């Protein structure tokens, strides 16, 4: 009995200790690569969104849910992450549907160009924030690069152990909880860097999207159909990476074949009023706040006009929640104005 107690207590202390160490070693994504914290933040939001965006940086840097709310009363959330691959989008959608059933899902099709896993660090940022479920398990299995091990996702300490000489005070401050970095999934930037000399992509030997990409696009389509969700495919108005005409045609054809809406915003920049002199912060890859507001204004109108999504500004509880986000959002604008020395 005494022995049993000894062993039990040792095990408990041992496991608790390892858990604590693991929490310390996990990257906190607070200061620099804030994008890494987006996926996890979703779970803190009340899951009754009407519109959910899935996709890569072209969704979380180009659309502003706050603007959609303020202007149209659209309650939306962006489940975006850096270089989110199409199967990651699919499994994130599967995961989202465990909590809520939005009326509209918006998917940015740039990731169709990646047929295989690309980069371990991006995978981690897209996957690690997910809560454990079969969707996460399948997501990991679909995303792992060579030399990666599933067990390193279950016990991320095995992956991040070598951070011991990179630990900062943040790693201890935010052991259990990290502050929110996004505004309903939106990553805000207000600085400007005009787009110029954006090169065309080099000629490719094969413009057809890969089988794997189509397989998951089919799955996204089916998942939405099965759940009575309207799926809207978009290509965000980012000038780079280059979006080939041949790629666009495939998406047009796919949308037609599956009775979906596909909007290539690259063709609508004039109509939307995007000015690549001022509306981008990195030379045409991503829009800044001013660009995101224009794009959101345009797209919000489309959603209100063409889908079942309605204005919910009348809901007191929801409005109150948004007001809090809006306050933080405005504060961030002020902060960035100071950071980038911008005066109105």
């Amino acid at each position, binding site marked *: 009995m005494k*022995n049993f107690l*000894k062993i039990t207590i*040792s095990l408990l*202390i*041992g496991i608790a*200790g*390892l858990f604590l*160490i693991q929490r310390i*070693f996990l990257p906190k994504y607070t200061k620099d690569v804030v994008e890494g914290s987006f996926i996890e933040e979703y779970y803190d939001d009340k899951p009754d969104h009407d519109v959910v965006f899935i996709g890569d940086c072209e969704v979380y840097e180009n659309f502003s849910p706050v603007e959609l709310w303020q202007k149209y009363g659209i309650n939306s959330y962006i489940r975006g992450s850096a270089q989110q691959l199409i199967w990651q989008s699919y499994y994130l959608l599967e995961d989202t549907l465990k909590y809520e059933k939005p009326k509209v899902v918006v998917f940015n099709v740039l990731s169709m160009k990646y047929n295989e896993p690309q980069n*371990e660090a991006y995978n981690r940022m897209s996957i690690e924030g997910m809560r454990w479920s079969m969707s996460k398990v399948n997501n990991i299995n679909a995303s792992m690069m060579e*030399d*990666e*091990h599933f*067990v*390193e996702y279950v016990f991320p*300490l*095995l*992956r991040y*152990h*070598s951070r*011991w*000489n990179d630990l900062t005070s943040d790693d201890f401050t935010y052991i259990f909880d990290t502050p929110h970095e996004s505004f309903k999934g939106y990553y805000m930037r207000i600085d400007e860097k005009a787009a110029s000399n954006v090169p065309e992509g080099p000629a490719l030997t094969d413009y057809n999207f890969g089988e794997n990409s189509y397989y998951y696009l089919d799955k996204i389509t089916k998942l939405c159909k099965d759940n009575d969700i309207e799926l809207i495919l978009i290509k965000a108005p980012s000038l780079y990476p280059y979006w080939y005409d041949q790629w666009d045609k495939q998406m047009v054809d796919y949308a037609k074949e599956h009775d979906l809406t596909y909007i290539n915003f690259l063709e609508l920049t004039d109509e939307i009023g995007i000015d690549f002199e001022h509306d981008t912060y990195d030379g045409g890859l991503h829009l800044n706040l001013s660009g995101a507001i224009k794009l959101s204004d345009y797209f919000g109108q489309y959603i209100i006009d063409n889908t079942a999504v309605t204005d919910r500004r009348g809901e007191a509880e929801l409005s109150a929640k948004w007001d809090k986000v809006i306050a933080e959002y405005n504060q961030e604008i002020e902060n960035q104005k100071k950071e980038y020395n911008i005066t109105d």
Partner: protein
Amino acid sequence: MLFASYEFIGFVLVLFALYYLVPKRCQWPLLLIASYVFYFLANPWYLVFITVTSLTVYGCGLWMGKIAATQKEYLSKNKENLSKEDKKTYKNQMKQKKWRVLLLGLLFNLGILAVIKYTNFTIYNINSLLHIFGSKARIGFIDILMPMGISFYTFQALSYLIDTYRGTVEPEKNVFKFALFVSFFPQLVQGPISRFGDLSKTLYSKHKFDGKNVAFGFQRILYGYFKKLVVADRMLIAVKAIIAAPENYQGAYVFVGMIFYALELYADFTGGIDITIGIAQVLGIEVTENFRRPFFSKNIKEYWNRWHITMGTWFTEYIFYPISVCKPMLKFSKFSRKHFGDVIGKRMPVYLASFVVWFATGIWHGASWNFIVWGLGNFVVIMISQELEPLYRKFHNRFHVDGHTSYKAFCVIRTFLLMSALRTFDCYRDVPLTFRMFGTIFTNWNWHILWDGSLLSLGLSLYDYIILAVCVVILTSVSLAGRTGSVREKLLKKPYPVRFVIFYGLLVCIIIFGAYGIGFDASQFIYNQF
């Protein structure tokens, strides 16, 4: 499945659980299954090789056993009828018969080993000769599958064969038990090379769960992983950087590489053996020790009695002694004493036998000239120190340094440096290059690299060097503590919380400071390739 892989750790943990859950009579069959699964997972074809070796050696063993039994029966039946002479003739006849069976087993299995390991080396040498004689003809290399640990299990099986011939062990009747002896997975990859008489004592017995034994086993496994992951794999990064760019890293770098390689090899190899012996201990099985603090040796001969002991014993038992006492050698001994006088004549046969042993040791490590040169390097150093022995003794007597701590330390360091220097042959794996690089230690005077930050270009950060320094202190302290008995027994006397902190700390150290995962090269245990 490498020792340092998640799969292996999972495999072993599941096996441990099953081992103590199944009925005790099923324990050794379970080990056999596990060993074959382990080997199968490495490559299904490996099983063919190990099965053939197991079956042929088993068969030869039985055959020799039968001859011995017939002999015994015949002699006891005809005790009265036979004269002493007759008995002797009969015994000789039977010995001849056994000898033929032994030879068959030896040649067949060494043949497999030779073909697999040395065909391409032979082709390489023939091609070199053709080149020397100006011929343009070349023989193409052959793609041969080399079963993991073939040198180890073949030697282990052959030791059984020879022991059976000598009558020191009874032939094993159960073919499955014998197959387990050959394939026992913890030692399959890198030894130790166990002898049947030793391993069989505990391999097949029924084992009750013994808390202390299991805890000790786990402790040893932990220590093994610590050596392997924290020390060896970290040092390997610097060693690889140095040997990959001989043009950039010369002089003091070569010296640093030499020391690091010695330490890395030590941590890697002894760490692996710790894991092997630890696993066996958890299973209640005793495996022969393979190291006894080798870096504390005061001369090379002593070093070889303490480093890779089972291999050294194998070569001594099965090559050195038989050669020393075989008939041609005795003849040679007589001949040389007659022609060269007593002083040299007496030494000639010993030298010849030693030469053969060291040549074999070299080529056993790998089919290339660097290993042969390395083996013969050891031979030369041992012979020289033996010849200088009288001189040393004079020196000792004159200056009364014997027993002096500082002199002992000098001897230890000297031996360590000498062994490390010889090891550079298997570092660069290119004999002329090794000589050239070694020469730069003396010609390229750049010792400032030791303190001017140049060492940070080898892929290790300052923190890594600090970790390594601390680890070397830990390894040395543990070794020193081990001189007066088992360290784990000593720790057992400490209060439980102290022990808990030590071993939990060790585990956390391995997890955090281990040089594994993305960013670190997964390096195999160095001895896998032999």
